[in-house]
């Protein structure tokens, strides 16, 4: 038996899927958490039921929206045995519009009247029995996250639902009908101003809103780096120990363990950033941030919707680029994706730490902050250019404010794990392979690096970077860094024996230029794959690479030249 779950965004479809199947699907509190259909299998009284959780949609008519298209195509082509229409009880009228539309597909339907607890808090009570009679199909009241009504819903699913007895053809008729039905079954009490309304007044305040937003971001970053730091130290220690243990096999100790280890040490930072973002998202705050930042984003041709992907980019650009899917406007979406690699992900931090420590002792934080800031500026101005000359046209956007909810530990974990996973996969595959490759390149045909293949490659490439005064070691590190930026420090470590030895190779100005270049050039392979997948275009993927290198080279040259005058 195949059951398609359809409903407005953020009504708790995925939470209900988890409640029915005991699954661990990621839920959010931000419209559009589910961007692809998810499948979950469950057994009800021994009957195997396959659930398909479709992305949230307000209707099925607007085919320009990818979410609506996925939902509509699925129902049309796959003809599920049953449609489970999940409805937000606190917003019945609007949700019924979709219900009426679903009836036109001629499939049996069950309505799950979810979030009845939130509705009650808003003073809304719905006569679900009456609603069922009017619609001519079963209506079950549920609170998915607390497992309320789930058993009854399962029973009704086995019974198979009903086709419904109302047929309205046009959009306007449907709107009228939805209003009429909602009026008949809803009782509304006036309630005092809710805490949510009060929070909204503060969070969206003209003067307070932006300082509060930056305060939250600052907290998230302190949490990311300070709270995670003991874990970083611990992992570092384990890696060093392991490396010594295998010192008899240099390909393992110097190659794999050092290589993969140099990446694994960032996992706590990334995970902690995503924990902080998950809490902000699940609480409902992120949607407020979208509103607060819209004005600023608009100046650069983006809109508030771009804020979340840009912030996530500080952790890892891969999930950040995937998060851009929630942006409806295609032009704004592509631009947000293309500029995302300029946001300095956590993999670039060790490069800054190394260089700032070696060349700018005493002012490391300022130099590192400047790198992050430069990344943001380049991203925003590139967005502006792209919107002005390539992706023209004004974007339109509308987004519903979700209710505030207290984040549940399990949901924070699922969201965090799902995003951190990409990073670990990268460490396990690409970085693992690269570590071995680099080790061989640096050890053959001669174990003296300058005569090894790696040395030859470095010397061959070096003239390109000669204007900035970078030697073959650094040129080689940049080439290796094509794969992933973590590899830059790793390569320097292998080539120089100790990465800190760069202090003797460069002037401070050249070092600063090198940092700028690593910030901006070439997204890592995993990010490139994400760009290709999300833009569905080789053209834009190649653009992302060449534009990045061009900007990186230009700015690195300017910084080196200017720096040479200053230092």
């Amino acid at each position, binding site marked *: 038996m195949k059951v398609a779950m359809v409903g407005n965004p953020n009504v708790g479809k995925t939470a209900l899927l988890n409640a029915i199947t005991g699954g661990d699907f990621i839920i959010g509190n931000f419209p559009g958490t589910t961007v692809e259909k998810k499948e979950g299998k469950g057994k009800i009284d021994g009957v195997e039921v396959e659930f398909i959780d479709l992305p949230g949609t307000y209707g099925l008519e607007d085919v320009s929206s990818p979410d609506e298209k996925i939902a509509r195509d699925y129902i049309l082509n796959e003809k599920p045995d049953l449609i489970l229409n999940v409805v937000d009880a606190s*917003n019945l009228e609007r949700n019924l519009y979709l219900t009426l539309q679903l009836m036109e597909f001629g499939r049996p339907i069950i309505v799950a009247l979810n979030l009845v607890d939130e509705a009650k808090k808003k003073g809304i009570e719905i006569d679900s029995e009456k609603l069922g009679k009017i619609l001519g199909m079963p209506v079950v009241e549920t609170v998915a996250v607390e497992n309320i009504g789930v058993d009854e819903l399962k029973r009704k699913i086995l019974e198979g639902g009903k086709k419904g007895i109302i047929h309205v053809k046009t959009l306007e008729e449907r709107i009228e009908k939805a209003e009429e039905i909602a009026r008949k079954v809803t009782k509304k009490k006036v309630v005092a101003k809710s805490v949510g309304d009060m929070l909204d007044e503060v969070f969206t305040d003209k003067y307070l809103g932006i300082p509060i937003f930056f305060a939250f971001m600052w907290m998230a970053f302190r949490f990311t780096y300070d709270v995670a730091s003991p874990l970083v130290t611990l992992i570092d220690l384990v890696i060093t120990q392991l490396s010594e243990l295998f010192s008899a096999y240099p390909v393992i100790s110097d190659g794999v363990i050092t290589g993969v280890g140099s990446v694994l040490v960032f996992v706590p930072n990334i995970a902690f950033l995503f924990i902080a973002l998950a809490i902000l998202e699940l609480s409902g705050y992120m949607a407020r941030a979208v509103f607060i930042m819209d004005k600023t984003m608009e100046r650069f041709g983006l809109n508030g919707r771009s804020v979340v992907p840009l912030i996530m980019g500080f952790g890892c650009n891969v999930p950040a680029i995937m998060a851009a899917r929630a942006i409806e406007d295609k032009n704004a979406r592509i631009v947000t994706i293309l500029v995302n690699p300029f946001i300095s992900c956590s993999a670039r931090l060790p490069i800054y730490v190394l260089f700032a420590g070696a060349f700018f002792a005493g002012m490391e934080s300022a130099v590192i902050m400047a790198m992050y800031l430069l990344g943001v500026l380049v991203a925003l101005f590139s967005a502006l250019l792209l919107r002005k000359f390539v992706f023209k046209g004004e974007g339109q956007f509308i987004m519903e404010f979700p209710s505030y909810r207290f984040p549940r530990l399990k949901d924070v974990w699922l969201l965090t794990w799902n995003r951190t996973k990409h990073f670990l996969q990268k460490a396990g595959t690409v970085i693992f392979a690269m570590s071995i490759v680099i080790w061989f390149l640096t050890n053959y045909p001669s174990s003296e690096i300058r005569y090894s293949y790696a040395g030859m490659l470095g010397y061959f490439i070096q003239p390109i970077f000669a204007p900035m005064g970078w030697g073959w070691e650094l040129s080689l590190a940049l080439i290796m860094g094509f794969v992933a930026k973590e590899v830059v420090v790793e390569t320097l470590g292998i080539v120089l024996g100790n990465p800190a030895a760069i202090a003797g190779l460069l002037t401070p100005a050249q070092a600063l230029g090198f940092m700028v270049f690593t910030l901006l050039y070439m997204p890592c392979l995993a990010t490139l794959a994400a760009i290709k997948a999300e833009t569905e275009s080789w053209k834009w993927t190649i653009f992302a690479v060449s534009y990045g290198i061009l900007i990186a080279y230009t700015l690195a040259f300017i910084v080196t030249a200017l720096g040479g005058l200053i230092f």
Partner: protein
Amino acid sequence: MVPLALMKEGSKGVVREIVGGRGAYVKLQEMGITRGKEIKVLRSSGALLVAVNGTKFVVGRGLAMKVMVDVSKDREKS
């Protein structure tokens, strides 16, 4: 009638018309911003924060220019 984008913070009105293409019209209808609904502007800075039927929406300024709102005093009657 005035476009939603030009309404002041704290003001109310009744949605009368959605101008512009079919796409914007369908989207707004589906989301519940339909003719005859009362709309309140909670915030206006860049995007607008509005409330319709107890639900809050962030509406981009571009889209808000397409929503025509009746703000006259006797709007309930018409």
